[in-house]
């Protein structure tokens, strides 16, 4: 019987290797679980009942992202910190009005983006069209084929000890990205928002979000590949 892998685009027979198929399934499971944020709503309910620790957990979970989103619109980190703090005050005042139509985090990010927009003095972001390939050209020969195949990351994913090292490297890679890439990849891949949600928060088109996201992921991939190969 021909092996069948159910990919994001439907069942594909005999196209992907068993290993690729396993990664595809893991990827899809991961994507579907990160989108869920049931815990946030539960924390919100506990906070409304007066639980200080629930608020602390939400702050620990989201404050740095709020600062980052605010920083996208305003000129200084100090102003972004102020906007993020005002956002928490708005949450404290308005939490009872949260209706649960969107997830808590989407609601929270909308508040910070709206506040930062009205505070912001930064000129509108320009997204340069980047026609270059996501992988350095010298990885390919003159016929456009890999000189050396990419290193496998499967061992990194399976190894808990390596995971801490990889997580640290990914974090550094994200922090070194240009502002727009950092904001996009944080909201899309770290926080698990949809492309349309990220586009609305950052006032960019979905097409631009995808271009920027591919670029950011490619940079992070390069960093992880260096860790996988043992280069630092």
């Amino acid at each position: 019987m021909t092996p069948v892998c159910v990919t994001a685009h439907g069942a594909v027979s005999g196209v992907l290797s068993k290993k690729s198929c396993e990664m595809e399934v893991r990827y899809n499971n991961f994507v579907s679980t990160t989108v869920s944020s049931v815990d946030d709503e539960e924390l919100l309910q506990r906070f409304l009942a007066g639980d200080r620790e629930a608020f602390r957990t939400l702050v620990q979970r989201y404050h740095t992202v709020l600062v980052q989103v605010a920083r996208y619109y305003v000129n200084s980190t100090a102003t972004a910190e102020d906007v993020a703090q005002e956002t928490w005050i708005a949450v404290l005042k308005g939490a009872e009005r949260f209706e649960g139509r969107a997830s808590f985090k989407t609601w929270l990010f909308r508040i910070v983006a709206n506040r930062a927009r009205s505070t912001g003095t930064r000129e509108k972001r320009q997204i340069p069209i980047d026609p270059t390939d996501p992988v350095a050209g010298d990885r390919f020969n003159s016929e456009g084929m890999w000189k050396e195949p990419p290193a496998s990351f499967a061992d990194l994913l399976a190894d808990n000890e390596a995971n801490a090292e990889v997580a640290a490297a990914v974090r550094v890679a994200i922090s070194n990205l240009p502002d727009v890439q950092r904001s996009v990849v944080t909201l899309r891949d770290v926080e698990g928002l949809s492309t349309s949600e990220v586009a609305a928060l950052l006032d960019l088109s979905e097409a631009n979000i995808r271009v920027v996201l591919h670029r950011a992921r490619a940079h992070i991939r390069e960093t992880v590949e260096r860790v996988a190969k043992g280069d630092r």
Partner: protein
Amino acid sequence: MALVKDINCREAVSLIGNYLDGRLPRRERRRLERHLAGCDACQAYLEQMRATIILTGQVGPEDLSDQALDDLMDVFERFRRDGDEDATP
């Protein structure tokens, strides 16, 4: 690492971003999948990209400094205290 059907590895790599987003038109998707079926290196690249997305999703939020957290908890306490005062007849 092979020229499979009508695209080479470099072109295949340039399509993988949209492939992961499910945004590749059917015709291009089929060309890419035919290439992937015969190219271990590009399959490895696709796995790298999926792994990168998984790993990025696992890093969690950046640590918040104790000072920043204390300041924000003060905001919470002030709000709760003022709220209580407001509620007092």
